[in-house]
């Protein structure tokens, strides 16, 4: 099956015009397959997670507030605005391609602009008002990931440490969504020159046909990729053991117990309440 749809431009040059729409199904099915496999794994094969040593002396633990803030209001607003925009974008983009006909372009580019704006906000907000580092995988994440995998496979390995603010899986997911999201958003921004908008004069000639071709292909690939990513994301959000995190994206905080169970106060220092301070590596 070919991945890219080519066509001859007015000068007879073969240029890519978009991805093969069959990829929509490929990625939709990939997403579903993942969650089914994962669900089965967790249900029948996965062992209970074990973490190295007691996280915190009971005294220190008691000192923690009952509710520990995980997401600021701004962060939560951003997340849900982005989520809404993303869903609108996915549906307006792909429903018509699979035969559900409606006038979709305007919804699509409006949602696109909202997504673009929220992404810009997020980058600024995350870089200057949040612990920017907390979301990126670090060395210990990788080491722990290795140990956890070995233990999961029944091999002997030291137990992993508890997580920082974000579990490794979150970080990985964020990383991928950043790549896909930026790709789709940047290409989408250019594509605004090709549709009727109140603020841009249509001009398909700002890029060469060949460049445009890759813009469209990239947009398409990232787009279908997001089908799978979003499916998986929603799946995890609904999984019982992850519900506290999902709730925290609504109410902003997690319980002290959940915190103690999953997180390493040294990697996610909350006592002082300043989320800005980096964790102290003291072991």
């Amino acid at each position, binding site marked *: 099956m070919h991945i890219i749809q080519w*066509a*001859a*431009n007015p000068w007879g040059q073969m240029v890519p*015009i978009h991805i093969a729409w069959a990829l929509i199904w490929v990625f939709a099915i990939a997403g579903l397959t993942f969650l089914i496999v994962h669900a089965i794994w967790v249900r029948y094969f996965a062992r209970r997670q074990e973490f190295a040593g007691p996280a915190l002396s009971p005294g220190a633990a008691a000192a923690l507030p009952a509710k520990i803030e995980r997401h600021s209001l701004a962060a939560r607003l951003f997340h849900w605005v982005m989520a809404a925009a993303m869903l609108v974008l996915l549906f307006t983009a792909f429903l018509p391609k699979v035969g559900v*006909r*409606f006038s979709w*372009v305007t919804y699509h580019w409006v949602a696109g602009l909202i997504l673009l704006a929220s992404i810009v906000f997020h980058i600024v907000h995350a870089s200057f008002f949040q612990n920017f580092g907390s979301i990126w995988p670090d060395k210990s994440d990788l080491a722990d990931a290795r140990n956890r995998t070995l233990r999961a496979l029944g091999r002997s390995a030291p137990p992993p440490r508890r997580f920082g603010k974000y579990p490794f899986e979150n970080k990985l997911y964020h990383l991928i969504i950043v790549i896909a999201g930026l790709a789709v958003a940047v290409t989408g921004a250019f594509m605004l020159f*090709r549709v009727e908008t109140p603020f841009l004069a249509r001009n398909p000639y700002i890029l060469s046909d060949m460049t445009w071709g890759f813009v469209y292909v990239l947009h398409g690939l990232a787009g279908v990729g997001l089908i799978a990513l979003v499916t998986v994301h929603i799946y995890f959000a609904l999984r019982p053991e992850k519900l506290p995190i999902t709730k925290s994206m609504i109410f902003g905080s997690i319980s002290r117990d959940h915190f103690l169970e999953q997180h390493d106060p040294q990697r996610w220092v909350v006592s002082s309440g300043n989320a800005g301070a980096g964790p102290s590596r003291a072991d």
Partner: protein
Amino acid sequence: MAIVRESSAIIRDVMPAFELFQPTSIEEALSVLAQYGTDAWVLAGGIDSFDWLKDRIKRPKAVVDLGRIRELRGVRELAGGGVEIRAMTTLTDVVLHPAIRKSFKLLADAAESAASPQIRNQGTIGGNVSQDTRCWYYRSGFPCYRAGGNICYADTPYGMNREHAILGAARCVAVSPSDSAPAMVALEAKMLVRNSNGERAVNAEDYFIGPGFDITRMTVLKQGDILTAIRIPSAWANASFYFEKISDRPVWDFPIVNIAAAKVISGGKIRRIRLVVNGVAAHPWRLRQVEEAVTGQPADEQTGARAGELAIADAVPLQHNGFKLPLMRNLVKRAICATPA
């Protein structure tokens, strides 16, 4: 710095070989269409088809000529004053049919304004209403939105769009070139569409679709569908009609703008009216607000003038087709205040 490109050679002449089928029944035709799927091409009068085939832009494996299907020809008067026109009836036969001339002169006039005598002798009513757009970029075989690509060549800083849309454009700015289509919408015709699942009746108004809904089609006809007949109800029989076509040449030319109006006037006031303009959008453009606004009003210059302004209120001109606004405005005015001939 030289960009070197290998180009695929383009030749716009000589129909590529295909297999020709001449079924004698609709069922047969449908079975061939089913057998070949997207490789099949339905041939009615052929006037539109042969351009695509001779230009080698469309390359069907099988061409299904509907010319031998008797049940697709002829005009039948319906009980209650309507008529049913089978899809393969030639435009000439529509123009000359006494019942149509008597009760639905609007359609006869519209059909008579199409193309040339030879084409009306061969072109069918089904083909004329369902014909593809004449956007010269699209017809050049360029990969525009309508051709499944991702660009509109007509609406660019350099695009030549004198003939293009001022209403309902959505990425694609092509217009419907049909002369009979607006008459069908004005007369509230029903289009009978047959496929393997049976036959359904579609209102003419819904039969024609815009690029926002589906950018690659002009009508609801999908692969495997055949338009079998057009039913014109008695609703507007013998109403007072107005059809006018404005084109660069008085013969063998497509409308720059045309208008089809059906009115019922009594006591100098407009009681009922249907107003449809074509050549301004991808489908015949029904002027609902105008119809509402003028109903109950006297059919005079004033009403016409107001109607004209209202008609173009939402129109958005492109670089070279601003003149279509006053043209459409004036035609709407004429259609409203014209006294039946």
